[in-house]
């Protein structure tokens, strides 16, 4: 069951001398199908992250709807929508997002703990994910002891621990070297191959080789790009 966006747009009010509004994302449709990796490329400030936040249920669109498995996400109240995000969506935010009071392992288990107890299966999965992203030996460290790249990989493992149907990754390879970039992209590809719909928002061309569909975001306008381009 896919993640579908219908006519979603986002307008922000700019509070300056002359108050006006601007489109961060113009009205657009998007379909993230299970088993596929979709990449959205574009310059900084083009609206990629805003699009991802609307798809993740974190940012209410100015217009349009977002459906998870046919359910209108924004028709639910925040509690239900948050629980749905926890269960169905793995969000990999930009930048360093480790919770400093928790170890790497506790950070990774956090989404699973939020609405229930952590099973042995989840713990094993957390261990496997940490090994898969190459930081298995750092599970008992705290985020301030990790490099930027290691923190990114921790965030990726954390986003995948609940086996989400949709993975929304914002610059997931931003701080990584070539070797780790490849490892992370392979991991996201394998997650898609196991049935998840994966969206990668990036400006790195390496990602495109792992994507089934590529979109370009330019000044809030989303357009599909033929892979040969």
């Amino acid at each position, binding site marked *: 069951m896919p993640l579908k966006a219908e006519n979603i747009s986002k307008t922000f009010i700019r509070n300056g001398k002359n108050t006006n509004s601007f489109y961060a994302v113009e009205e657009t449709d998007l379909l993230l199908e299970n088993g596929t990796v979709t990449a959205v490329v574009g310059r900084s400030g083009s609206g990629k992250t805003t699009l991802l936040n609307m798809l993740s249920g974190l940012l209410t669109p100015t217009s349009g709807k977002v459906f998870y498995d046919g359910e209108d996400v924004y028709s639910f109240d925040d509690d239900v929508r948050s629980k749905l995000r*926890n269960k169905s969506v793995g969000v990999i935010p930009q930048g360093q997002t480790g*919770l400093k009071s*928790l170890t790497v392992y506790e950070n990774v288990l956090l989404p699973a703990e*939020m609405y229930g107890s952590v099973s042995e299966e989840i713990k094993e999965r957390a261990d496997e994910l940490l090994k898969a992203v190459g930081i298995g030996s750092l599970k008992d460290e705290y985020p301030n002891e990790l490099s930027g790249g290691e923190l990114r990989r921790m965030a990726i493992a954390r986003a995948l621990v609940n086996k989400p149907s949709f993975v929304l990754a914002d610059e997931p390879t931003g701080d990584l070297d070539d070797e780790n970039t490849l490892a992370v992209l392979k991991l996201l590809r394998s997650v898609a191959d196991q049935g998840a719909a994966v969206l990668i928002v990036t400006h790195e061309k390496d990602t495109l080789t792992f994507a089934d569909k590529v979109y370009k975001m330019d000044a809030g306008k989303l357009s599909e790009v033929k892979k040969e381009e």
Partner: protein
Amino acid sequence: MKFIFALARKNLIKKPYRTLAMILLAALAAFTVFAGSIVVLSLNNGLKSYGERLGADVMVVPSEARTSGSFDDILLQGITGNYYITEAQLNRALSGVEGIEKVSTQFYLASVTASCCSSKLQIIGFDPETDFTVQPWIRERYSESLGDGDIIVGADITLNSSMTLQFYNVKCKIVARLDKTGTGLDTAVYTTIETIRQMAENAVILEHLTEGYDVSTSVSAAMIKVADGFDAQSVAGKINGRKGVKATTAQSYVSGVASGLNNVAGAIGAMVAVVWLLAAALIVVSFVMVCNERMKEFAVLRAMGASSSMNAKLLLTEIFAVTAIGAVTGVIFSAIVTFPLTSLIKSALSLPYLLPSFWAIALTVLGAIAATLVAGAVSALFAVARLNRSDAGLMLREDA
């Protein structure tokens, strides 16, 4: 909630300095509220007890009492004093004054050191036949008549196993100890006028009391009950027109003390309010600053599936835990400082000072904790409002 408690606990433990600073702020607020409240309550309690113990409408003392160990020194501070007037002089001063319903004389004698106490005691002798000021509250503890050599001691006098004390070679039997009054009467000894005169005679022989006093015919003060329809102030005024005596109304004592007490209580109350407000403002500002600093952390939790209400509960749990720990710590430290320093506070304030009852103290403990939690709750409201205004999507941007 289990998840929220566990995460809040880890957040607090992992940031020990931040947590400690918050706890100290809350503790300061609780410390001030508790200590200030206890002092104000003790002053009020002391005044109430003081008024109740006076018993008489008008007190008459020799003129010299105003300069040597005056009446209010004895009543308030426990400063000992010896001053006397002959019964004949006193009777002359009171004769013909209209409005006197009852008169009872008292005899005061300062002890030399006694085994019970580190300092001198004031011994107060009263006439059981005419007394209407001491016996009514002595009866709360001792209902029988005082015999020769029997004494009743104030609450601050230590009892020994033999239950006896010796003053000027007169061995006395302690038959009761009075409840605490918070005044100088707590270090006084009460006995009959016959017993105290035996002591005074020995004191003259032992040269502790100036020769020249005929102790068998002297008294230190007269307690007067004014008849219905007469004004104590005017009775005192008439007595003051006579030679050798000075009359004061109980009302003027109580109102003088009450006025001093109101000033002190007002100043303490204002100080408590200012410190509480400052601490509350600091708590609010600190929590809002901490909340601002942690916006991205809360946004990350949102991205992982935490609802706004879950984030708010996490923040509230942390604030409640910190203010509750701070409040309890503050009250404990406040009690450790305030209670042992009772006598120091009493002597510094020079006012009747009587600790409130256990239940009043327990209520004050709850009140101080509640006042601190209110400061925490106000800061929580601001912090949660700040949190709810923030946009998780925007906070997650790398440059946010």
